[in-house]
């Protein structure tokens, strides 16, 4: 019997639901492709995969100047080819522009565990984005201060915890 399957809409926030097994498998493969700059999160966690269909996937770059963009495309291509999905086309779309609101909850947890303060969900459109202080990913204190608006990658800013004195990266709201 063809029972109705539970939709996997949680995989890609805001994107069309995955419709069948092939797409499901592709999503599984992509969830093992890490971001080259922040390897604790996958390309799925980051929300840069915008659509998954049996014969094509659509990805979007994070920042226009992110030097990792081409590397990510190559990693995805490589993973698909290795898993026998070389017929799946890889397309790049700029619109709608990527936002940190598309980072999954799981991705946010992974970033925190890695020592990077994740952006609060839904904050990219808030009027005071990047104005509120992030929580220190090490000790949990809110007593933190910005050192530099630009960090080691385009997506991060440098912060310091006044409570435990440790510096940390903040994933910028974008």
């Amino acid at each position, binding site marked *: 019997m063809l029972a109705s399957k539970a939709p996997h809409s949680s995989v890609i926030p805001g994107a069309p639901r995955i419709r069948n097994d092939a797409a499901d498998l592709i999503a599984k493969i992509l969830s093992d492709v890490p971001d080259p700059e922040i390897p604790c999160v996958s390309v799925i966690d980051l929300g840069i995969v915008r659509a998954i269909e049996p014969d094509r996937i659509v990805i979007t*770059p994070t*920042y*226009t*100047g*992110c*030097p990792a963009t081409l590397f990510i495309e190559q990693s995805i291509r490589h993973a698909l080819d290795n898993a026998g999905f070389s017929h799946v086309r890889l397309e790049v*779309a*700029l*619109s*709608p*522009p*990527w936002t940190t609101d598309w980072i999954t909850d799981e991705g946010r947890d992974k970033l925190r565990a890695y020592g990077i303060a994740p952006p609060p969900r839904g904050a990219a459109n808030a009027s005071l984005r990047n104005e509120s202080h992030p929580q220190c990913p090490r000790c949990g204190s809110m007593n933190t201060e910005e*050192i*530099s*608006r*630009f*960090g*080691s990658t*385009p997506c991060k800013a*440098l912060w310091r915890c006044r409570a435990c004195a440790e510096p940390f990266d903040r994933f910028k709201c*974008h």
Partner: protein
Amino acid sequence: MTPPLAQYALRLGDDSLILGQRLSEWCGHAPALEVDLSLANVALDLIGQATYFLGVAGDVEAKGRDADRLAFTRDALDFSNCLLVEQPNGDFAQTIARQFLFSAFQELQLGALASSKDERLAAIADKAVKEVTYHKQLAGGWIVRLGDGTDESKQRVVAGLDWMWRFVDEMFDMDALDRKLLKDGVAVDKAALRPAWDARVDAVLSEATLARPAPRRPVLGGRAGHHSEHLGHLLSEMQFLQRAYPGATW
């Protein structure tokens, strides 16, 4: 003849490319590590924008030139960036003055371009404007710190703004190409952005305890390929590899 849309995309791309190249000259030389990171990140954003805009120019032109070929194999006369972005870095204050004046303009321009009838330009603008807002905040913050800082920092930022000010009017200049594409719903009415730009710039200058620089005779010509000698030197460095080893890849 190059299609107007390709020329327009080239202008947008050249502004970003040349400023991105200028800023990257700071890499490893900035006054502090945090500043080095900031300027390199802004440069990366600009070069990313340039790659997209020049890609559109190459597609529309349909002569088989991609973004890299357009960046690395054109001569100075074929560049159509505004003169402001090719000005030398000078000291840190002069670099910040240039960045502040341009980012304030670019944020407005890209905000308007996001509603262009050309979907490719609109998509690039919609994405890039979020990043440029950051550039403007960074540069504006430094204008205030330098202007409202020590006597020396103030004197330097005043000199930087004064040097760059003569190139401001060109950013808002509308020539025949702009007017044609504006009529088609593709281009931005740059002249109409001036009041908003004036208001934003004045607000930051006032917070920085700085007066608006004295009016200067505007210098124009970049859009038509009439550049300062500085552009040639910039290109000789940027294009060296492709000039010496044409078609080299790695």
